[in-house]
């Protein structure tokens, strides 16, 4: 369930309605950014978010991602 996919916010398209353009592998779709919008909408541009049914639901934390990957590398090394 709950098909979600990482997309990059490339532009704010309608600030009043909290709409932005998101891009996934070269595919663009307008999404609602209400759930991830702070005070400065423009600050979203360039950020990655988890996109679900046309809504950016959560910003993706690159540090956490790296930490998870490091964690996996660990189990790899422990194997070696």
């Amino acid at each position: 369930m709950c098909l979600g996919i990482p997309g990059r916010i490339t532009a704010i398209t309608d600030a009043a309605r909290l709409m932005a353009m998101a891009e996934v592998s070269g595919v663009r779709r307008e999404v609602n950014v209400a759930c991830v919008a702070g005070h400065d909408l423009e600050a979203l541009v360039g950020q990655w978010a988890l996109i679900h049914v046309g809504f950016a639901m959560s910003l993706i934390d690159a540090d956490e991602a790296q930490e998870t990957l490091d964690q996996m590398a660990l189990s790899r090394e422990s194997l070696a």
Partner: protein
Amino acid sequence: MKFASEFRDPVAARALLSAIARKADAIGAARARPVHIMEICGGHTHSIFRYGLDRLIHEGVEFVHGPGCPVCVLPMARVDECVEIAERPGVIFTTFGDAMRVPGHRKSLLQAKSGGADILMVYSPLDALELARRSPGREVVFFGLGFETTTPSTALSIQQAAREGLTNFSVFCNHITVPEPIKALLDDPDMVLDGFIGPGHVSMVIGTHPYDFIARDYGKPIVVAGFEPTDLLQSVLMVLTQIAEGRAAVENQYARVVPEYGNSVSLAAIADVYERRPSFEWRGLGEIDASGLRIRAKYAAFDAEEKFGIGYATGRRSVPEIEGCACGAVMTGKLKPTQCPQFGKGCTPDMPLGALMVSSEGACAAYWQYAGARETAA
């Protein structure tokens, strides 16, 4: 694809599979005495089969496919009501694609469409909202279904419709929640589960604390997981580690997306628009207390149940499900899909009988489609 491909690395996967094997051996898991781990979420079921993880993983680890496909657990009576609304003159009924094939007692939405009902597939409730703006003479109904992941999108859409004063947009609300059916499963005396893979995208909305009861009250480990194959493998490893260490805790493998306390905007929107129903029916599981949401009275103008006098609004209860399906037993891990007497006979993906054959997320459909279980059955 950034934040996805990195988590599909075959080398990392092999390492994780080895680590899992060692851990499984360590705790004495074997084909005859497997550790039962339920992935609650249908998306996880999908990933398991898509990447063939069930075949690669140590034979002492057995995945039990949970009730986490909102399309699959939709009861027939609700589908009947969808059809009833969709067939009203003037209505444009909008829905996610995968809900089209779910059978009702009389017909599915796909069949209703072929019979002339104006049913449109959309990607987002925003698209239904836009359609309502552009079709002032028509009533645009959005088929709101899904767990906590999806609920904010319809809540925000209803709030937006209210702001714009749209009078021809409504939502037929079938949103359900994850913790309640899990509790129901855990309360089942025949329950055999040893741990859980927690739903990553539900959790990005609600955070990880709603699962505390699983560890605290039932003593079962749960790891909230991402959807890529190494995410899943790492999460299995974390569950096994808890078991090995005799712990039961809520852990978060998917921290890049899931904040501990969830998403405050989403939670506020849900709280503003929805309230709990006393109870809601799940296909295969029956009525579960407080497991469904309904639209609050202040948004009654956007509530299709109110607008059309249909469903729980009318006090009418569900028509009984079809006899002879073992969905409940499969969903609680008591039976494998192939052990259901209907599997591949009365129940196939093109003519599904039970919940789990309906969407490709459903455990039985996934078995059929990806695992080659058909030959086993035939």
